[in-house]
């Protein structure tokens, strides 16, 4: 398998940057998208990579917070993140307004592999797992690979950015747990319902979402004999391979752990074991 986009070495283009927020968009009272004016990241990052943000200028919270690069405009030199307010860090981050400058480390991590032998791609998102998939969709479209999105959420209100996928020409199917949009159920059930679509095409599977969902996807894809890449989240202290805190269990007997920030965040499901 020859990668079209080589997984960039972590660190190669790593910089500590002061990035200005130039646009802020609320999708729900909890979900927000920030756009930063930063050509370095816009130009040199690849889908799947992330940035690590110092969300306040004091020690509360102490550590940076990692966010996937959600979308880039290479030409105009901006990139975006999409996130949900869940705790102290995201709360503080969401308070910054247009004009503020944030201390950002990036781009970090490896990236989704886009392979020439795949003529299509299936993108599977659970909740905020949608974040890195828009950037991925941008690149797939550039590479003339047709993509389809399966997107699960708790309810209709939380569905966001599908308009941007539409504009890229990426078809989408929704699932919501409360049935308020698309299939009633989880995204894994949506994937099961569309099994034929998944199995038939010569597609790469890309997924991002909570670990239990990704473990389920892994099992499903293994049964269907599909190659699948997932983007993982863990707690991180550094984001660039020095603290050794961001471990996940690997499937290799000789090397029981993988580090999400430098070996990932993107892994083939064959490499990792997400069971509790």
């Amino acid at each position, binding site marked *: 398998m020859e990668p079209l986009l080589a997984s960039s070495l972590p*660190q*190669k283009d*790593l*910089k*500590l940057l002061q990035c200005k927020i130039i646009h802020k968009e609320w999708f729900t009272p909890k979900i927000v998208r920030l756009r930063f004016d930063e050509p370095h990241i816009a130009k040199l990052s690849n889908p799947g990579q992330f940035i690590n943000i*110092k969300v306040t200028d004091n*020690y*509360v*919270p*102490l*550590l*940076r917070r990692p966010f996937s690069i959600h979308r880039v405009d290479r030409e105009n030199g901006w990139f975006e993140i999409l996130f949900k307010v869940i705790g102290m860090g995201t709360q503080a981050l969401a308070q910054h307004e247009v004009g503020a400058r944030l*201390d950002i*480390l990036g781009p970090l991590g490896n990236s989704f592999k886009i392979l020439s032998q795949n003529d299509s791609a299936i993108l599977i998102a659970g909740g905020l797992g949608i974040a890195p998939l828009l950037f991925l969709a941008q690149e797939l479209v550039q590479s003339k690979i047709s993509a389809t999105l399966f997107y699960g959420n708790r309810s209709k209100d939380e569905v966001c950015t599908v308009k941007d996928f539409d504009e890229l020409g990426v078809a989408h199917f929704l699932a919501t747990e409360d049935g308020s949009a698309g299939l009633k159920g989880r995204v894994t059930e949506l994937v099961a319902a569309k099994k034929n679509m998944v199995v038939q095409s010569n597609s790469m599977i890309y997924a991002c979402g909570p670990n239990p969902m990704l473990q389920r996807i892994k099992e499903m894809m293994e049964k269907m004999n599909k190659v699948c890449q997932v983007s993982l989240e*863990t*707690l*991180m*202290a*550094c*984001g*660039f*391979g*020095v*603290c*050794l*805190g*961001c*471990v*996940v*269990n690997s499937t290799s007997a000789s*090397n*029981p*752990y993988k580090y999400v920030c430098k070996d990932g965040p993107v892994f083939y499901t064959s490499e990792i074991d997400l069971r509790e």
Partner: protein
Amino acid sequence: MNRLAVTIGNLELKNPILTASGTFGYGEEFAALIDLNRLGGLVTKAVSSEPRAGNPLPRIAETTCGMLNSIGLANVGVKNFIADKLPFLKKLDTRVIVNIAGKTIDEFASVISEIEAAGGVAGYELNVSCPNVKEGGMSFGASAQITALVTAKARLITKACLIVKLSPNVTSIGEIARAAEAAGADALSVMNTVVGMAVDIATKRPKLATITGGLSGPAIKPIAIAKVFEVTRSAKIPIIGIGGIMSCDDVLEFLITGATAVQVGTANFLNPQISEQLVTDLENYCQQNNIQDINQIIGSIQVK
């Protein structure tokens, strides 16, 4: 004349700013972000005889103004260290100190011998104090006797600067400091992390797989300053102050209290350029305050 130069045992450092073990990888991870050669020195991640995978996950947790870790001395092992990491480190124009971890007293000695054979390092820091690896109960560093034994055995093997890293998790750090000094240590690193723990109230599980771990970051600085002070009263060899350093003011606080040099740990995660920045800040401080020699500051604390 370089006004920031300090001496630790037989080691001249161009300035008192080092980076702490486990927070700076093997140096190369920072090469894209700072000029490593501006540092007084760097201390590698722990090196043990065999590669170690480290502790199960989760391994880190955030606390108020601090973090817990139980990395468990995950490292590439001495052979890979020599083959893959040392060549890069040898090219640097800064002092490279290798942090040594062992499950047995002999493991410390054997790791040092292997590195001595390869050459090119300025010193060793014996990590007898890691709270995350407890073979046979207490960590070695809780016993003055075992600390002395580990130190004495290492001393036989190397003439390089031998530093013993002390644990704060003891009733009397002064006693352990004296034991290390008597056994031939050239300097003491004060301190390693403080034993701490956090519990996720939703899952009722400890936030670390190992239940307890090591607390680091600004929360522990007052503890570290107290330990440095206590050690100045117990031992005569130089002290490298460690614990919660985030700013030049923090560096000065350690130096004034009696540390000859400092190591920056957790701060590297928040700001990967902090170590080089601190060298600049310290230079500026000396310039602005007309301090010709940083040694004037060291131990300058006024106690009546």
